């Protein structure tokens, strides 16, 4: 692949994450071929591509689910190697999967602190600090303007949009570097989609870096700053969202419009 064409032109901005030449094969299928991705700090980057273009595989490389076969990933200029999701999480990357990873029968505050429980006391008598977690959960949600009747209610009682918002708030709170969202509004109605989109905008206003997988071009226009397009496992284009139309993005995805490598 043509690597001397700089697809990603790190527009001299503050680069949070830089992935270069990522390749990944599953048996005979090459899911990624020298894919590149540069994420600017504090921006919402949309990752676009048709089904099978390698979006999910690229994300899984960043989150440690599938370490890449070749290629480098650097965060703040330092090379990192994630062999497990835990390592990626420790580096400050949080992912909101489509399944949301919420426990329905646990209250909202417990979901926000899942696997990061606050405790008091020591040794075997260390107990959950429920009060502190409840208070902080309220603060986390208030800060992000997430409207939940009570943090003590179980997640089961929440609407689809509320659940999505809780999952995003959790990721944004713990994801000190990057929040990855996999089609966050795919299962939502119009009003709930709008609420989640404004939450993503608020995250950006607070300086959170977001990588957004979406199939909805008008949504990308509404909330993303930069769009990166994958085709057959390769990064073919990077566009400032303001400079393109949804039709341009679709054409880049399908190949009707050639990418930057000038195929």
């Amino acid at each position, binding site marked *: 692949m043509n690597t001397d064409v700089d697809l990603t032109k790190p527009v001299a901005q503050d680069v949070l994450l830089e992935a270069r030449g990522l390749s990944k094969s599953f048996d005979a299928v090459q899911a990624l071929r020298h894919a590149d991705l540069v994420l600017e700090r504090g921006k919402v980057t949309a990752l676009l591509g048709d089904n099978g273009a390698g979006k999910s595989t690229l994300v899984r490389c960043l989150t440690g689910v599938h370490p890449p076969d070749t290629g480098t990933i650097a965060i703040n200029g330092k090379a990192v190697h994630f062999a497990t*999701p*835990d390592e990626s*999480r420790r580096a400050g990357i949080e992912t909101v*999967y489509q*399944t*949301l*990873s*919420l*426990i*329905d*029968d*646990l209250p909202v505050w*417990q979901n926000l602190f*899942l*696997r990061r*429980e606050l*405790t008091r006391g020591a040794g075997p008598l*260390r*107990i*959950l600090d429920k009060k502190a977690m409840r208070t902080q959960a309220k603060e986390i949600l208030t800060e992000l303007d997430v409207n939940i009747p009570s943090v003590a209610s179980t997640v*089961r009682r929440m609407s689809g949009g509320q659940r999505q918002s809780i999952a995003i708030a959790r990721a944004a709170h713990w994801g000190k570097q990057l929040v990855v969202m996999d089609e966050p509004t795919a299962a939502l109605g119009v009003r709930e989609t709008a609420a989640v989109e404004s939450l993503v905008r608020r995250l950006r206003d607070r300086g959170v870096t977001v990588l957004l997988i979406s199939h909805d071009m008008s949504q990308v226009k509404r909330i993303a700053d930069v769009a990166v397009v994958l085709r057959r496992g390769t990064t073919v284009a990077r566009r400032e969202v303001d400079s393109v139309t949804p039709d341009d993005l679709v054409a880049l995805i399908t190949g009707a419009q050639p990418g930057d490598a000038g195929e």
Partner: protein
Amino acid sequence: MGEAVARYAAPIALVALFVVFFIATPKFLTTSNMTALFVSAAILVVMSMGQQLVITVAGIDLSVGSNLPWAATVIGWTWTHGWGTPAAIAAGILAGLVVGLVNGLLVARLKMADFIVTLGSLSVVSGLTLLLTGGNQTAVSSGFLQGLALNGIGPIRWFWLVAVVVAAIAAYLLFWTRTGTYLLSTGGNLEAARDVGIPVNRVRLLAYAGSGLACGIAGVLFVSNNGGSDPTMQTNLLLSSIAAVVLGGSSLSGGRASILGTAAGAVLLQTLLNGFTLLDISQYYQPIAVGVVVLGAAFISRFQR
């Protein structure tokens, strides 16, 4: 409204049952009968706490049906072989724990279906129990164990204390520790628990080990109460332990637990047997009554969520 009823079904039903038996016979609400009722309920309460842990992680432990006689028989065998009371008790508890650990390893590490694993170990362990003493009963005339069954602190019997302490430990573990959160999460949504980094296999192993441990402790109470062990003993404790948990409002699909509910469920089942005996109702009706109660609990649980 329906939800509150479902949530407190076991305590409510327990009170209702007490009223019914109180009206039906003057022999029911007497000090001696209450003492006997709660002493015999203690064994089921302890076992049900173990079953509660397993059901919380969306599993089921069928092996408790033979794990209790197994633990009791190990106590009998070691005691008759001159191990002394403390060592025999330790051996019995350990024997129960080992069965739980093996179940847990097969389910969590080898990804075998919990139902099949514990059904298999139910059979294997009952065979081991028969082999250990050649199918013979063993008498254990340990002063300490007899005292455990008959004495206490003032009017508080040791058996009650054991049951309360075991239930308190289970409640502490489930609702006040990280481990408890992981037990509830693993049972509530295995995929999500794995996604957020909870060590689901270790958590499930722990639940089965806890159930085995509870069977070991129940085995000590059993030997204490019966003065020995009987390897051919057929108990209804398997169904009753599951029934107590379901009556208590926990879902068999996991993720929800209620220690108060499970304890109330266990006492309720014991009260049913006690009341029937007092009223001279044929014991053949007892399994029917237990079964109907369980089906009723399953019906009520439809209103939960």
